[in-house]
């Protein structure tokens, strides 16, 4: 593989790792709220956070451009305050992967948290533990298998992200071309042999992650 391909491999891992880090934090928090708290607009929040799972990624990417572009609602404020724009940077690739992978994390973690035995949770409350302590020391440890599966799935999804990424981060060789984008470019210019080696890398790495998530799910708690 040449330098350009190695860059894409490294960038993909970097983007997926950073995105997964935030997906894990935000996703577990959101999953806990959705599973254990009843509040107004709970299902609306669930729908909003899950939409990127079912929307075509290009549409998700279009929403992100409308929000975070220099002419967008949020992007304009950022640009006015800092003179910086998110679009066409690798941070944009992180945001796109984050938004697309988050629903996988939430869905997996939510069902794991919901299946935690209520009696155990109530016992913890009766022993005088606060909700926070109970969540951190009882609920989340008991749901760890689902959470770990969610993290692994999110990483794999983030690494394969294409549609939303190419909209928000652009396809800038040596700057934002993750493996899926580089493959698209190589195929677009007829460099099949170079594309094939990257297709292989992407398939193997994703396969390993799916294997990890499956093994994790199968084991006993």
């Amino acid at each position, binding site marked *: 593989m040449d330098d350009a391909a190695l860059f894409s491999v490294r960038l993909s891992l970097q983007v*997926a790792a950073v995105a997964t880090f935030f997906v894990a934090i935000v996703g577990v928090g959101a999953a806990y709220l959705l599973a254990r708290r009843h509040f107004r607009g709970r299902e609306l929040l669930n729908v909003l956070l899950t939409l990127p799972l079912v929307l075509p990624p290009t549409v998700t990417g279009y929403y992100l451009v409308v929000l975070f572009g220099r002419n967008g609602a949020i992007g304009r404020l950022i640009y006015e305050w800092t003179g910086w724009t998110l679009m066409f940077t690798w941070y944009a690739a992180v945001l796109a992967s984050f938004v697309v992978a988050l629903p996988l994390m939430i869905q997996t973690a939510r069902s794991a948290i919901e299946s935690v035995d209520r009696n155990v949770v109530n016992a913890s409350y009766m022993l005088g533990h606060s909700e926070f302590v109970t969540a951190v020391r009882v609920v989340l440890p008991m749901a760890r298998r689902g959470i770990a599966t969610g993290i692994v799935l999110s990483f794999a999804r983030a690494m394969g992200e294409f549609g939303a990424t190419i909209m928000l981060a652009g*396809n800038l060789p040596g700057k934002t071309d993750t493996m899926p984008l580089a493959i698209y470019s190589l195929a677009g210019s007829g460099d099949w042999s170079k594309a094939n080696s990257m297709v292989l890398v992407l398939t193997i790495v994703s396969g390993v992650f799916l294997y990890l998530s499956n093994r994790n799910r199968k084991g006993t708690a």
Partner: protein
Amino acid sequence: MSKNERARMKLIARLILLAVILGASPVFAGPAEMTVSAAISLKNVFEEIGRLYEARHEETRVVFNFGASGDLVRQIEGGAPVDIFASAAEKDLDEAAKKGFIIAGSRTDFASNDLVLIVPKASKAAIKDFEGLSQPAVKRIAVGDPGTVPAGRYAEEILRHYRLTAATKDKLIFAQNVRQALDYVARGEVDAGIVYKTDALLRSKEVKIEAVAPESSHTPAVIPIAVVKGTNSEAAAEAFISLVVSPEGKKILQKYGFKAAAP
């Protein structure tokens, strides 16, 4: 948590941390950057012109953003930091200009493309020219969707020119973009297709060019380029466009099968 499991979790956490550290590359200031959003079909040509440009203008680094022309317009509308826009057909650049994202007067139609009739390399059907499409043995012809794909609209015009509209009406397979039409032919899913010559050349191992549509048979498939409003490097952008239309730029365009625009 069993020991085994804890070790595995730790391993995953460490791998992720390692990837983050490896990836945290320092940002260093170099020459000023100029971003060129261009249709993916222009990739080979523009990369070569870009290298030539950088060799002559050391103070500027050319950064390309290759994608589908429609997506490139959405990005420019959203406020992406783009200095130059080159679309695969007039339609998308016209749209960006109409919405006020293009510097008036900066637009140049720098090249045009031929439309060609292609068949799968292994094809046994005797389609030697456009008229050959009317024979009953030809069941499926792939073209871009004329509603959204410019190449599809040109294909429609060519069929009309040869008075084949009625004879081919039930044979046309509309593809989402011209590359998909090309792919159908390359995989032998259809008997023939009408696509850009430059795209057909990329898959010359799989498809055969049987005929080139004469210029009189369709609207010229011109390829426009222009400077995007809000650029910080208007002079550099204009210099890039000058290089594209220069004799050297033309030579590169022709090398990849494009027809350079007449001066």
